[in-house]
Every structure is written in C-alpha cells, then in structure tokens.
C-alpha cells in the first residue's frame, strides 16, 4: 500500500519558486492494483511518479511506501554512461541487496538474457542507442521483485519485437504485483491497467475503472 498524503509540489526555477504542480494530492494506492496515470502534458504525472518512487521529495505533505516499490522505470536515468551494461547491472544488483556472488550471477544472467544486447552488454552504456538503453532498463527493473512497479513510458521504447516481449513480461508483472504507469497511448493503458488516476489542475481523481479516468481526461482536453 502506498499512502500519498496531502502532497504539494513545486520546483525551484532560476527565477524563484515555480508554479504549484501538485496542490494537495491525497491517494491510497493498494498494492495489487494496476493503475494508469492520465492527464495533459505538464499535469504532474512524472512528478507524481517520482514522488511515489522516492526519487524526489514533496514540497509539503508526505508519501509513505508500505511495500517494496521499484524505481521509476524508463526514467531515462539510472544508467551510468561510463560503465558497461554488465557493470550497471551489477551496480543495481548490489544496491538491492544481491551482492552475493551466486544471487548476483543469477540476476545478471536474467538481465543479459532479457535485454538481448549481445556483445554490447560489455560496452559502455554511453555508446547505446535509446532503444538499447530501454532494453537494458527494462531487463534491470524486471530482474528484481517489487510489490509495486512504477513505469514512466517504459513500454513505448524499443523495436517491434522487443515491444512485444516487453509487453508480455509487463503483463505478467501486472498480474502478479501492482503497477503504476504513465503512458500516452490509451491502448497501452487499457492493456495493463484496471484503475485510473486523472491528474487535473494539481488535483488527483481516483477511478476504479480506467475507462472513467480516460473519459474524464478526454473531456478535459476537448473543452480546452
């Protein structure tokens, strides 16, 4: 269970404090539910994901993670360019408590197998294309066991064959654990999510059915 309590967020800009992006978001997200996050550009979807993932801290309010939550996948970050794919994988394994030789080898083997990078797995990540990076990131996040996975457009990268593989793996994850995702394609959201959160003007609205969230979102952009 993730408890988001009266979260306000604004960013510091070079010209002082920016506008309030989240204005008092209060949510309780159960562990076993797959939730899609919808809202127009700049509504604060990625901001909310980062807050839930603990990568950023709210300006006011609190986020409580009462379960194991992944880092925001497809975040773009999380890979050190100067290190090889394998070294990055080792780093993340150690970080998550799999530093032992055997358990780590198991994780690395899984990641290497999933990412299908071939010999590039031992090349520095800065030489990767964006598709290769997302293959690695996807493999990384699926190698570890979380109660809730956070995905920020993680499914949209890669070529057709990888997208298929990623979607299948994602579906299995969604069946087994919770999922909080941002995606701009409605098809993706329908495919993976049951519930929805609609972010509008700094407020979050929970819907038990993703269709209702999408409907509200569509209505809001057709008016504007």
């Amino acid at each position, binding site marked *: 269970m993730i408890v988001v309590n009266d979260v306000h967020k604004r960013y510091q800009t070079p010209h002082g404090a920016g506008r309030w992006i989240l204005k008092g978001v209060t949510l309780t997200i159960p562990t076993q539910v797959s939730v899609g996050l919808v809202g127009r550009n700049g509504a604060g979807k990625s901001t909310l994901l980062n807050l839930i993932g603990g990568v950023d801290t709210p300006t006011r309010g609190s986020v409580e993670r009462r379960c194991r939550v992944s*880092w925001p996948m497809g975040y773009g970050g999380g890979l050190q360019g100067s290190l090889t794919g394998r070294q990055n994988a080792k780093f993340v394994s150690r970080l998550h408590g799999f530093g032992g030789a055997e358990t780590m080898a*198991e994780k690395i083997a899984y990641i290497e197998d999933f990412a299908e990078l071939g010999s590039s797995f031992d090349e520095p990540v800065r030489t990767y294309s964006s598709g290769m990076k997302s293959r690695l990131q996807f493999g990384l996040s699926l190698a570890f066991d979380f109660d809730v996975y956070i995905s920020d457009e993680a499914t949209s990268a890669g070529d057709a064959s990888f997208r298929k593989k990623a979607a299948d793996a994602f579906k299995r994850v969604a069946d087994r654990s919770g999922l909080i995702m941002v995606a701009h394609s409605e098809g993706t959201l329908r495919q993976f999510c049951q519930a929805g959160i609609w972010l509008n003007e700094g407020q979050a609205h929970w819907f038990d059915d993703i269709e209702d969230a999408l409907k509200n979102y569509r209505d809001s952009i057709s008016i504007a």
Partner: protein
Amino acid sequence: MDSAQPSGAPLAPRNTFSVTLAVWNALFLREAVARLSATRGAWVLIVLEPVLHACFMLLLYTVLRTRSVAGADVAVWLVLGLTGYFTVQNVFQRAMGAVDANKALFAYRQVRPIDTVIVRAGLEALLGLVILVVLLIVLAFFGHSIVPDAPMESILAFIGLMACALGIGLLLSVISELIPEAGNLTVFLFRPLYFLSGAIFPLSAISIQYREWAFYNPFAHGLELLRSSFFPVYHAAPEANFKYLFGFAAVSIFLGLALQMRFARKLRAQ
C-alpha cells in the same frame, strides 16, 4: 511476498543500515572501476604522478647536495610529503565532483548525494595509502630505512589528513553544486596549498613570525606530523599538533554534513 520469484529475494524490507552498506559497496566498486579502468593505463598514471614528482624533486635536492632535510632522509621525507599531499588533494577534489558524476544514479532512491561523496573520498584515501606503501617499499629496496619510528602516530596523522580532506570535500561538494563557478574557483585557489602544506620544503624553514599563519592550514599539521612520526631525529615545526588536525577535521566534517543535509533535495535535483 511472492514465492514464484527467482530465489534470493529478501523477504522483509531491509533496515536503513544494511541499505546504506549495500549502497556504499555498490558505489565503491562502481567508482573504483571508473577510476582504474576509465582510460587505458589509468592506474599507471595514478601511480606515476607522485613517482615522477618525487623523482624530479629528489633530483633537485640531490643536485643541491642535500642528503637530509631537518634531520630526515630526504627521499623518504619527499615521498611522505608528496604522496600525502596528492592524496589529500585527490580526496577533496574528487569528492567535490562526486555528486555531479553520479547524478544518473539518483534515479534509485537508495542512493543519496552524500553517499557518493563519502565513498569517493574513501576510495581516494585507500588509493593514496596503497601508493604510499608501494613507494616506501620501493625506497626500501634502494636501502632507505622506511620503518616509522612511531607507527601509531603515522596512522593517526594519515587518518587526520584524510578526515580534514573529507570535511573540505563535503563542503566543496555542496558549494560547487549550488554555485558551479565557486567550484572552478576553489581548484585555482587551492593550488598554493601544495606549497603551504610543506610538500616540498620543511615548514620549520619559515621564519617564526609567518609560521603561525602557515599552521592555520590543517594539512601543514598533518604532513609535518606524518613526517615526524617516521624519523627518530626530525626537527619538526613545533606548531604541528594533533589537536588542531582533529579539531579541524571534526568541525569541517560537521559543517559539511550539515550542508549536505540542508541541501539534500537540491543536490538530488536532476
């Protein structure tokens, strides 16, 4: 927890201490790999810099027909001063860049900016110690006496030096992130420390009315103490003392940690 997962999944959330240990372990190995294999022969350069420096200074000193400085064997004296100073410099300069170099890894909430600074400082201190020991052993092959006269004091002096460098590194890591220009400026401002710490000349040679100024610099204390711990007969500058060295370390580390805490959110910002 789901039992269908690959084996080895921790059953309960880890406590903060074990998370921090895991982070330090992962960061340490990541930093070590980057430092030692970033370019071809990176590790050769790391060793070669102080060696060449020491050889050059040794040549100067011996051409001037000096075999001893203030009662000490000049070769050992130079190696202690130069490697000691370079280690200090590496610790605070590399610590300064630690936050920026690891920005990508803040995507994992377990990694905090302060971890990167502490781990980098630790790695540099360890590298410095290894180089120092290797160089001393090389000197031993040439017939120099390298066994410290007061080993406990040598250890304390080295720890004190590293602690001061960590404190300054912590401070600089925050300052240079908040004000990037200040970072560039400090590299330039800290250059004279090479001389002011007495890496290549005995501080006891400074006339007494200026010496007290020189000893506001904690590294002057540290290097002088390190040297005097090695030689049974060494005319160290009397101002050097452990009290100032560890006092400076405690204050600078405290201030550095306070700044890191105060600006933790800002340092993390992508």
